[in-house]
C-alpha cells in the first residue's frame, strides 16, 4: 500500500536541494577569488583562509564563544540532569506548571529575554559583557538539554536501579555506578548540542555582550563591509563543517544503546 510514491520522492529531492543549497553556497564562495559573491566563479584561492588566520579580533571572539559555550553547556546540562531526573522518576505535583516554566525560555521569542535581561542588568548598575551572555545562554540551553535527557531516561530500565538498591548500594553509588554510565551518551549529546546552540546564538549576545564580542557578533560586524567579507565565508565554511560533525556525533550518541527505540519527538 505504501510502497512507492514517485511524486513525493521527487518533491523530497527538491526540498532537500532547497534546504542544502543556501548552506553549501558559502563554502563554495569561500574558495572564490573575488570580493563579490556572484556567479560565475572567478578562480580558486586559499587567500580568505589565510586572511582569517591573521585576524586577532576574530581569535578573541572565537575564544569568547568557546568560553561561553563550555560554561553554558556544562551548567545547563547539569541543571537539566536534575530536572530530567525529577520528571522521569517522580510524579511531580504541579508537573505541567514546572515543566512549562522550564521549557518557556526555549519557546518565547529570544528578543524578549534579551530585553528583560538588559533592562534588569543595567538597572542594577552592572556592566554588560560575557557574564550576562553566559547566564542567558544557560537559560536558553537548559530546556533543550532537559528534553534530550528526559528522552534518554525514558528509554531506560528502572529495574537496573532497583536491583542496585536491593544489592545494598545507597542512592549516591547507584547513581554513580548504574545510572550515570547508562545516561552518559545522553549527557555527552546534551553537552555537545548545548555547546553548538550557545556557539551559534546571536540575539542574546547581541544585546548583552557590549564590547566583548562572541563569534556571531564578530561575523555580524563584518557583514556590512564587502572587502572584509570573504574571510567570514572561510570562517563560515569551517563552522559549518565542525558543527555538522559535532551534531552527527551527538545524534549517534543519543541513539547509542537505545536499541530499536528511536524517538525524535523530544529535543532536536
Amino acid at each position, binding site marked *: 500500500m505504501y510502497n512507492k510514491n514517485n511524486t513525493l520522492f521527487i518533491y523530497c529531492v527538491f526540498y532537500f536541494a532547497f534546504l542544502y543549497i543556501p548552506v553549501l553556497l558559502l563554502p563554495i564562495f569561500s574558495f572564490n577569488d573575488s570580493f563579490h559573491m556572484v556567479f560565475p566563479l572567478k578562480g580558486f584561492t586559499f587567500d580568505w583562509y589565510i586572511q582569517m588566520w591573521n585576524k586577532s579580533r576574530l581569535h578573541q571572539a572565537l575564544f569568547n564563544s568557546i568560553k561561553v559555550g563550555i560554561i553554558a553547556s556544562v551548567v545547563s546540562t547539569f541543571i537539566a540532569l536534575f530536572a530530567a531526573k525529577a520528571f522521569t522518576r517522580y510524579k511531580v505535583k504541579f508537573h505541567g506548571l514546572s515543566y512549562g516554566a522550564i521549557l518557556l525560555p526555549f519557546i518565547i521569542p529570544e*528578543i524578549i529575554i534579551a530585553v528583560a535581561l538588559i533592562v534588569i542588568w543595567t538597572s542594577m548598575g552592572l556592566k554588560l559583557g560575557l557574564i550576562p551572555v553566559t547566564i542567558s545562554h544557560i537559560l536558553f540551553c537548559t530546556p533543550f538539554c532537559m528534553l534530550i535527557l528526559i528522552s534518554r531516561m525514558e528509554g531506560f530500565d528502572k529495574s537496573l536501579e532497583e536491583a542496585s538498591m536491593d544489592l545494598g548500594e545507597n542512592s549516591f553509588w547507584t547513581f554513580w555506578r548504574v545510572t550515570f554510565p547508562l545516561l552518559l551518551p545522553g549527557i555527552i549529546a546534551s553537552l555537545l548540542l548545548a555547546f553548538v546552540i550557545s556557539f551559534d546564538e546571536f540575539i542574546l549576545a547581541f544585546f548583552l555582550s557590549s564590547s566583548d564580542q562572541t563569534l556571531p557578533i564578530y561575523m555580524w560586524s563584518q557583514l556590512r563591509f564587502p572587502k572584509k567579507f570573504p574571510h567570514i565565508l572561510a570562517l563560515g565554511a569551517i563552522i559549518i563543517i565542525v558543527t555538522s560533525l559535532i551534531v552527527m556525533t551527538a545524534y549517534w550518541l543519543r541513539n547509542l544503546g537505545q536499541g530499536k527505540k528511536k524517538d525524535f519527538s523530544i529535543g532536536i
Partner: protein
Amino acid sequence: MSSTLQNIYFRSDQAKAYTLLSPALILVIFAMAAPMIVMIFTSFNTQISMIEIDRTFTTGRYEDFFSKPIFSMLLFRSVKISFFVTLLTLLTTYPLAYYIAFYVKKNKMLWIVLMTLPFWTSYLLRVFSWRVILGNKGVINSALMGTGMIDEPLGFLLYNQAAVIITLSHAWAAFAILPLYVSLDKIDKSLLEASYDLGNTKFETFWRVTFPLSLPGVIGAILIIFIPTVGDYVTPQLVGGTDGRMLSNMIQSLFGRANNFPLGAASAVLMLTTVCLVAALVTYITKKVSMRMS
C-alpha cells in the same frame, strides 16, 4: 542512624522531586521571571537622558506605542509574517514528513538527520546566504541573466516581506519536520488499512484518518514556529529591507541608537502579550476541533 526529620524528608517523593527541580526553577525565576517583571516595571518609566531613567509611574510609553502608527504597524506585520512563515513551513514540510513516515522503510534515522542538520549550522550565515541567492547580483539573477532569460536583474526578489518569509521558512523547517514526522510515524497502520477496507479512497483516508491523527504534530509545529519567529531580528535585518522590517528591529534600535529603554521594554511587553494571545487562541481552536472530531 539519621534523625527522624531527615527520614521524613527523604521519604517524601515530592520533597525529593523539588530538590532536584530547584536549580532549574531558580534559574527560570532569577534569569527569566525576575528580569521580565523588571522589564514590565521599566515599561512604565521614562528615559530622561542617555543613562538616566525616571522611575515615576506613567503609561506614557504605551501611549507612545499606540499613538505612533509605525509601532502598531510593525507589530501587526511581525504577526502577519510569522503567520505566513508558519503556513508555508507546514505546507512544504508536511509532504516530506509524510513521505519519511510512510514510504521510507530503511534508514529513517538518516533521513531525519539529513533533514535537520542544516538547522544546526550557523543561523546567521544561512540567513546571509539568502541575501546572496536573492540579491541583484545574486545567484538567481546571475543565472537568469547568464541564460539570457532576463536582461536586467529582478529587483523584487530581495528586501521585502516575501524574502523574509522564504528565509524564515527555510531556517525553521526542522522545527516542523520533527513534530510532524513523530505524529505521523505514531499512527497505527492498521487504522489506515481499516479505512481502505471500508472503501475509502487514498485521499479520503488521508483526510479522515491520517490528517486528524497528525494534528498534535501540526499544533506543535505551529506553536514552535509561530511564537519565536514573531521576535526574529536577523532575517528582517538582512533580507527584509524597509518593507520587511519587523518590531524586533525597532526594539533593537530603541536599545541602541534611539536609546529609549522604557519604550523598548513596552514594545517587548506588547510583543509578549500578542504572542501569548495567539498561543492561547491556537490551543483553544485545537481543543474545539479535536472535540468535534472525536
